[in-house]
């Protein structure tokens, strides 16, 4: 059962991801990306990481995707249709480089798994509970993550202020010249 | 502190509004909607309600007040009044020969009533005006005058001839000839058709 769910979800995610990188319509790409993110939340559930799954859906699908879609709606002319796409050799380079990277990764993964099986060091499958995650997130010391946690909050605030400042409508020097 | 006072005042306003609507909700007796076809016998319309126009008769003489001046025709934005007139040999005054009311075009705006200087038009409350065909909506309002019969075949260019009533027309046509004076003039509505 688990296998069936895994393969279905994985196939769905890969198809959606392929659609995201090949479609000529950026809005459809965004909808495809939503599928990818939701599918990965499903894989988290399959790995018993419910908290991560919930966070994935809340932040990624409900937050970042909405942000991207809003950005697309705000910039209609430039993003609806990607008419001036690349020449074919560009896509060829992309395909070749992706295939090469995949070959390297696949080789190292199989080698790694083989070494693992030989050494037999893997532990029983388990997942961190919410309580553990919560405690680790707020405890200092060796197993605690309170410092990165605080750093992330600072980064988020900085990003918030920075994004507002950058996106604020400033008088455009070029258009000003035209007006004069 | 000002903001707290404001907030509290706003909350009070919201709550009193909610109290009002809940009061209406809780007392079904306050409902003012009328269930129309059921209460037809007891239905009372307000006096000033307006549904269609009608000609006013003088109570003493039994004649229509209308002198066929054509002000209403000019006032009507939709060309819904069509009027022909003749000079009454008795009184030497103009009277409507046919006062044709095209209800299918009427907006019930009441501009004709406002335009009328002789107290000859009024709005009635007779609101059940549904009909099976647009032709049924064309009506001659001075139908009590003996010369204004119900034959609609010669009414304006806009109306299609009604075949059912054509048979009745020759008999009444003579009737009309007796009463019509020599001078006959049609007040045609202004052409306001869109170009």
């Amino acid at each position, binding site marked *: 059962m688990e296998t069936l769910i895994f393969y279905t979800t994985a196939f769905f995610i890969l198809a959606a991801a392929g659609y995201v990188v090949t479609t000529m319509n950026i*809005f459809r790409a965004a909808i495809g990306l939503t599928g990818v993110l939701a599918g990965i939340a499903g894989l988290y559930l399959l790995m018993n990481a*419910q908290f991560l799954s919930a966070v994935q*859906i*809340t932040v990624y*699908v*409900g937050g970042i995707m909405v942000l991207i879609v809003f950005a697309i709606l705000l910039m209609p002319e430039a993003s609806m249709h990607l008419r001036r796409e690349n020449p074919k050799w560009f896509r060829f380079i992309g395909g070749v480089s992706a295939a090469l990277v995949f070959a390297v990764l696949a080789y190292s993964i199989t080698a790694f798994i083989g070494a693992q099986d030989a050494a037999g060091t893997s532990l029983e499958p388990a997942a961190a*509970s919410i309580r553990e995650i919560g405690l680790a997130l707020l405890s200092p010391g060796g197993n605690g993550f309170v410092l990165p946690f605080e750093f992330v909050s600072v980064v988020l605030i900085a990003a918030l202020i920075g994004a507002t400042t950058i996106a604020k409508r400033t008088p455009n020097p070029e258009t000003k010249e035209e007006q004069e | 502190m000002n903001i707290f006072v404001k907030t509290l005042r706003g909350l009070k306003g919201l709550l009193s*509004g909610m109290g009002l609507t809940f009061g209406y909700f809780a007392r079904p007796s*306050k409902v003012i*909607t009328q269930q129309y076809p059921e209460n037809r016998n007891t239905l009372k319309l307000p006096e000033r309600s307006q549904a269609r126009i009608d000609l006013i008769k003088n109570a003493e003489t039994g004649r229509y007040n209308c002198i066929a001046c054509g002000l209403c025709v000019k006032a009507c934005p939709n060309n819904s009044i069509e009027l022909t007139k003749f000079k009454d040999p008795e009184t030497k005054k103009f009277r409507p020969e046919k006062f044709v009311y095209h209800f299918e075009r009427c907006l019930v705006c009441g501009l004709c009533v406002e335009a009328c200087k002789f107290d000859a038009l009024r709005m009635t409350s007779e609101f059940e005006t549904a009909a099976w065909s647009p032709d049924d909506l064309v009506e001659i309002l001075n139908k009590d005058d003996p010369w204004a019969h119900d034959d609609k075949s010669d009414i304006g260019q806009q109306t299609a001839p009604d075949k059912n009533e054509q048979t009745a027309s020759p008999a009444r046509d003579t009737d009309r000839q007796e009463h019509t004076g020599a001078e006959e003039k049609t007040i045609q509505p202004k052409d306001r058709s869109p170009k």
Partner: protein
Amino acid sequence: MESYIYRTDKLILDLTEWLTEATGSAFAAEVVKMSIAAAVLSAFVGLLAMILIYIERKVAGHMQQRVGPMRVGPHGILQTVADSIKLVAKEGLTPKNADAFIFNLAPLLVFASSFACLSFIPFSPGMTIVSFNVGLLFILGIASVGVLGILAGGWASNNKWSVLGAMRSGAQIISYELSATLALLAIVPFFGTLDFQEIVLSQQKGWWIWRAPGVGLLGFLIYTIASTAECNRTPFDIAEGESELTGGFHTEYSAMKFAMFFLAEFINIFIVSAISATVFFGGWMPFHIEGLDTLNRVFDLLPPIVWFFGKVACLVFVVMWFRWTFPRLRVDQLMHFEWKYLMPLSLINLALAAIAVSAGLYFFN
């Protein structure tokens, strides 16, 4: 048989056991159980939407000294049935220049996200379709997927008013979602779990709206306001301002696709009321006052499911009451209200809750 109404958890357990015996494997039993749940839920959604629409129209009527639908059936109870038959029988149109794929996908997205939320709601002891340990967080996450459907629908319609309506609607929902989430999270430290059934069980001694000192009441008020806005209900319905934007994002939709948006809207009202009832008013837990055993036993006579739906019905009525009382807000007022008043207030509420929990300050302990 009678005890099953009160102990639905036992009913579910017995059903699972029986199904496992009958089908021979736990997996098949689970599949059958889920199929039953899906069928029941689908029927429930249809029925719920019809009842809610009927009640909405009746409430609207009586609050405005009218009577609402009266013709189809006694007191018009079949009106929504007739309406839905009409909606289903209509032709589904897709505008000529619309992006057909996304145009058809959008109502599904909106409807699916609302429908999925229903599976976390605890209707009765043990009666939750998906019971797992982050239910509250998950429901908040899934509810926000609906925004994407709204934006997609507005964009795919290829109509500038639809896009404007969708953007207003989306901006409004994601803004008010913050307050709604924060208001709920302020109560989470009190019960220390995100599982809906455990949330209900933690209110055996009293509902959290009273037990959490002040925080509960404030949180409930914030959540009610924010969730009303999240459902795009008046007084926050500028997304569908009929005089300016016609129908907002669903202007171009007709027939079944429109019905899906409509259905999702009414399910959302039910869901936010159900969450509110579960978190603040004890879910299916009967009202108990400690010490008054006779009274408590009288209250226990009503089965939990009746308590649950009773509480939800009261909250739904309040939302409808808002709609037919208050005038609509302007779009800038809406955003000011959220970002300048409601958000800081819910953050303060969260801080107060943290202080109250760490000091052990709650009633009926």
